[in-house]
């Protein structure tokens, strides 16, 4: 925490070396966050750049209370920056879900049919799965899973209903599950084909 505080004070003093340290230490983690929200790497770096500028501008209002508080605070800013970026680029990112019987119908969680994943998939592939989702699904999924927002908080941030948030999340999970299954099937097919090839 002491080092974090010293670095913060250095940034507040507008020292270039402190800013370099800040960027080098947290840019990678924050870029990973941005990559989950943006479709393309270039967009993610733009969001990262914009978010860091906002961090510099508002750092004087930050009070470090414990270790990791700075990163959490920076992530919050980066999430907001990413959401603003998405809003600017895509107006209709959420697919309204209309239920057949009334709007206040409680959305039921679908049963867990997925089961444990035995095969590890690379981070790039998983990230690709997420970025290939529709913007609305992707955003809700990121906010719920990684930022640990509640549906109520997501609804407030994205200006939609809680049911919409839940349905978006469910659809995102369904799509991701399908993608994972396809990847697993592909890997299995490749593995089986290799064995068959080796047998010959």
């Amino acid at each position, binding site marked *: 925490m002491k080092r974090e505080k010293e670095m913060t004070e250095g940034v507040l003093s*507008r020292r*270039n070396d402190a800013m370099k340290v800040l960027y080098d230490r947290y840019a*990678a983690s924050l*870029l990973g966050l941005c990559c989950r929200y943006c479709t393309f790497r270039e967009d993610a*770096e733009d969001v990262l750049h914009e978010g860091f500028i906002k961090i510099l501008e508002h750092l004087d209002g930050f009070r470090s209370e414990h270790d990791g508080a700075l990163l959490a605070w920076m992530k919050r800013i980066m999430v907001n920056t990413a959401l603003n970026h998405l809003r600017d680029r895509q107006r209709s990112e959420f697919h309204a879900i209309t239920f057949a019987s009334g709007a206040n119908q409680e959305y039921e969680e679908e049963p867990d049919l*997925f089961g444990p994943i035995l095969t590890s998939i690379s981070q790039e592939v998983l990230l690709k799965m997420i970025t290939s989702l529709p913007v609305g699904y992707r955003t809700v999924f990121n906010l719920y899973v*990684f930022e640990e927002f509640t549906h109520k908080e997501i609804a407030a941030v994205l200006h939609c209903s809680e049911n919409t948030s839940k349905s978006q999340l469910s659809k995102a999970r369904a799509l991701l599950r399908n993608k994972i299954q396809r990847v697993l099937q592909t890997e299995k097919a490749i593995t089986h084909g290799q064995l068959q090839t080796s047998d010959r």
Partner: protein
Amino acid sequence: MDNYKHPIDEYFREALKDYEPVPSDRSRDAFLESAGRSIKRSRIRRNRWFLAAFLLLAGAGSLSTWLMFNENHDAPRVTVSTLTPSPLPSPNFTPSKQNGKAETGPELVITESARPEIPTLISFNASPASDSATSLQTFTSGLPEEPSMPDHRMDETTLPEYRAEPSLEPPDEAAKPPYRVEQDGTETERGPDKSASILLSRNGASVTVGVSYTPEWMFNTLEGDNFAHNAALEGTFRFGRYSIRTGAGVSVTKGTHEVAIRYNDYIGSYKALDSITFAWNPEHTQLIPTLYLTNQDVFDSLILQEEHAVVRRYTYLQVPLILGYDFISRPRFTLGVRTGPVLSILLGSRQLSANYDPGKDKIIMVNQITPDRIQMNWQVMGGINFSYLCSRRWGLELEPEARYYFNSVYEPSDITQKPWSIGIRAAVNFNFSIKK
């Protein structure tokens, strides 16, 4: 967050929790460049507040000093005139104080005159008295017709010119630090300081304009120590470490002008009989006199002298021509010397204190003690200039200085007492052009 942990959620969360892609160099460089500009903007923003605070303090300090030293007495412009009595009474009468016992004449009914200026009767000593004649002689000799008294409000030609300051030297625009245009990759904490975009090259030229304020304390004057306020609008041309500064300014100071007043002390007054008229009463049994009296002042024959000082405010126009050289030159600040001549021209003066009030005394003569002030004088100044560049355009200066007057500030040339002064000049400059 909901308590239910979906396996997909858990899987993605665990798989990507340490996903930290390395940003590209382009992205990193872009951020550091933007951060530098952000530093510059915030520093400029912060310096603007500092500049505003400095100006506010300087203005408040000047105003308070002005009010503290501005002793406006609101002197009424009263012209002193000699009290001229009416025609002298007959030598046979001895003037006496009022309310003397009246001596009645034979069968005279003395009544008050109808003239308003003779409200009461006074007693007369009918017998001629030599001492009264002597006193009357004194009156006669001591009461000129109405000597033309000079106006006690000493005009500018009579009052000594006390030139307290004229240190309205333009601030050293040339003292603005010549910033080195450095393009080396090393950046200090104040990276923008070395940026070529805001710094002057040592070999470059620039023109700056600024305003300055200099409180000045003068010594070795006829009126003793004196204090002056100097304010100026100045322009500086810089070329490298050298600079030339000029401009126009106003210098305001106060001085006292002493005069020696000779007068006769007022003793008292009496009512002199001008004429008497007689008229019969209706029964034609009595003659009723009517006395016409006038008030006569009596002054001591001894001539007294009193010194009186009048405070005046003098306003000068100052035109300096200051040459400078910076022997220490850094991106943000410079330190150098300044020297050069200053021309002061008297614009006007205004009396602040009240005129001499003689009361009932009679003024005989007014002699000037303090000489008048000259209209123009020259000085030479020397100082150490320290300047600080707050931003690309704005800078501050502080310059303790000393001045020596080539000639006295007073009219007569035989006055060898030449004043000298010290002061501290504070200036705010704006950089108009930067040429490399």
